[in-house]
């Protein structure tokens, strides 16, 4: 699933625009992927690094493979200054792109990657992740209780939660005077929104939202429920401008679109820069996701990877990164350092009762085929 194809808004600042283009370029480069070895996707299991080296200071270069907007030059520079380790960062645009590259053997240089929740589960199943040596992690106790033993990786044996967010609706509050509060708004106001709204070009998010609006789970596998969701999405389709995970910014900011379904990482920065645009999490619940830091089994320089994880677990570092890049941190102590303005932003840190209604997207096994078939039908009917 091309989840969060590029999680940036292009019109904010020059740097975010540049990062955005990197993301999209990576997305498009993914199309040309054809580099796979004879044993399709078989991963090499490399013996975990010798733990006796733990005492020696890490050095050399750390190669990181991450989303476009989780790291910036400043973070890398701070890390290099603190540890003497050089950082090289490559970005990907979707979990699937990352997985494909790792499976094809193109990711052997990476010591650290940032998969999302469901991808952590999947990669553990594929034996691609190193079991973390808990004694080498400093500051994991500062992570909020909610993330101490997440469903996707109980007890955080293979991953360290880094950020989290939701999916919601970003809308033009000047035109839409009755603001959307829930998914049903899209169907109820399809005349006003006609060809002025976009949904994510992301099967699981968009089908999930429709399923959610019908009272089903984001991770439904029952063919009857999926069929019902497909029909309901078809109903909405004549009013859709497009399915877009990126490229909606221009049209939304110019007023040509009134509403876009977006990931919070992209929506919230727009709403902070321009009060006309408001981000809302549908009250019946949307999807909530967590991105993590993991060490692949093929990783060189494991010591440097541990250094990076511990560096990012520091509340001060986490707080500063969040204030630059606007994502929600699971680090409880970092939250106490955050500016009141960000902390009070209910979109960034939604209230517990709303969060309780949100669901994490989980692997659906064989139902993937059905999701994909319905998606192709939706997009070409």
């Amino acid at each position, binding site marked *: 699933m091309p989840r969060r194809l590029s999680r940036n808004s292009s019109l904010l600042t020059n740097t975010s625009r540049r990062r955005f283009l990197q993301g999209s370029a990576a997305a498009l480069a993914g199309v040309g992927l054809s580099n796979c070895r004879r044993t*399709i996707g078989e991963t090499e299991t490399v013996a975990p690094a010798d733990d006796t080296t733990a005492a020696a200071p890490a050095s050399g270069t750390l190669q990181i493979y991450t989303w476009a907007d989780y790291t910036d030059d400043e973070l890398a520079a701070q890390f290099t200054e603190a540890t003497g380790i050089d950082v090289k960062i490559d970005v990907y645009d979707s979990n699937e792109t990352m997985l494909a590259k790792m499976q094809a053997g193109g990711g052997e240089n990476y010591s650290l990657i940032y998969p999302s929740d469901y991808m952590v589960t999947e990669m553990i199943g594929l034996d691609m992740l190193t079991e973390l040596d808990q004694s080498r992690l400093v500051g994991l106790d500062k992570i909020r209780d909610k993330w101490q033993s997440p469903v996707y990786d109980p007890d955080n044996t293979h991953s360290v939660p880094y950020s989290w967010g939701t999916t919601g609706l970003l809308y033009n509050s000047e035109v839409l005077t009755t603001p959307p509060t829930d998914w049903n708004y899209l169907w109820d106001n399809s005349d006003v929104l006609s060809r002025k709204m976009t949904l994510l*070009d992301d099967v699981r998010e968009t089908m999930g939202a429709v399923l959610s609006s019908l009272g089903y789970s984001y991770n439904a596998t029952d063919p009857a429920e999926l069929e019902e969701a497909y029909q309901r999405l078809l109903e909405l389709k004549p009013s859709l401008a497009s399915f877009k995970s990126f490229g909606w910014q221009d049209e939304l900011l110019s007023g040509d679109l009134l509403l876009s379904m977006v990931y919070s990482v992209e929506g919230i920065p727009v709403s902070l820069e321009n009060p006309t645009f408001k981000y809302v999490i549908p009250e019946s619940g949307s999807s909530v996701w967590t991105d993590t830091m993991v060490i692949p089994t093929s990783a060189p320089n494991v010591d440097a990877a541990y250094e990076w994880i511990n560096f990012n677990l520091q509340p001060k570092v986490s707080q500063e990164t969040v204030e630059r890049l606007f994502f929600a941190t699971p680090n409880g102590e970092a939250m106490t350092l955050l500016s009141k303005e960000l902390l009070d932003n209910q979109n960034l840190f939604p209230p517990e009762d709303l969060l309780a209604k949100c669901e994490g997207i989980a692997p659906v096994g064989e139902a993937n085929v059905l999701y994909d078939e319905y998606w192709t039908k939706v997009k070409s009917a």
Partner: protein
Amino acid sequence: MDKGIRPIAALTKAPTLTTVGRMLKSGIRPLGLLGPAGIWLLLLVVLPTLLITELSLVPGLRPGQPIESYGFLNYLRILEPTYLQVLQRSATFATGTTLLCLGFGFPVAYWLALMAPKRWRNLLLVLFILPLWTSSLLRTYAWITLLRSSGVINLVLTTLGLPPQGLMNTPWAVYVGMTYSFLPYMVLILYASLERLDLQLLEAAADLGANPRLAFWRVTVPQTLPGIAAGCLLVFVTSLGDFVVPTLLGGPNSMTISQLIYNQFLGVARNWGFGSSLSMVLILMVSMAIALLLKYGDRNPDIYS
């Protein structure tokens, strides 16, 4: 004994050496010339294609799975109406784009090759190719700005008192974007072809009483037919596999074969088997277009001599 044999050996040996040398030389020279490109093609075209062919024959192959059995199920699945519709849409987009490029490109190339002042020609050509130096992604984003409801095009239209058009997120936007993207290729190829046009033949046609229109259709067009065919082929092939334009400009009904293939490899299904069979179909469609060009495109190659 030795002394007696040596000259004979030398005599018999000498011609053999030169023959072998000649043979080696005649063998090495083409090898040296073709080798680098040959290895390139072998490693990056032939082998991957063979690999895709193999994967396409494994029904429902997902990465990480062992290959268990072979079959044609992936190909049969393409025949389902949903997927045929996607294929048909891609072919329609590509055909339409090709015709539009030919329609817009021919007059431009004609003017550049035959009517533009000679000393400006190269500069004009460079100007025409200039957009190709920027990323196609950027150029497509620029079209969003132009095409959207309150965009530049509608601003011009409403200023002129004309009704605004809802072009963005429609198939028309795809045609506009793709035609723009691939027009320079068409113009370049047509220009190369028109530049070599034998003007004496046109004079002869005029002498024999043909009016300019007749001369154009009976002399100019047949002479540039190979160029037209090559240009059309290039545009057709590139637009058939285009991903950026339909994704960004196309609206909710714009799934093309390249997006479908993307979804099979990196989307939710991760069905590499089906994705490979779709890729094979794309390769086949392109090969057919090239075969048609080889058969009909250059019927009369001696016109250049």
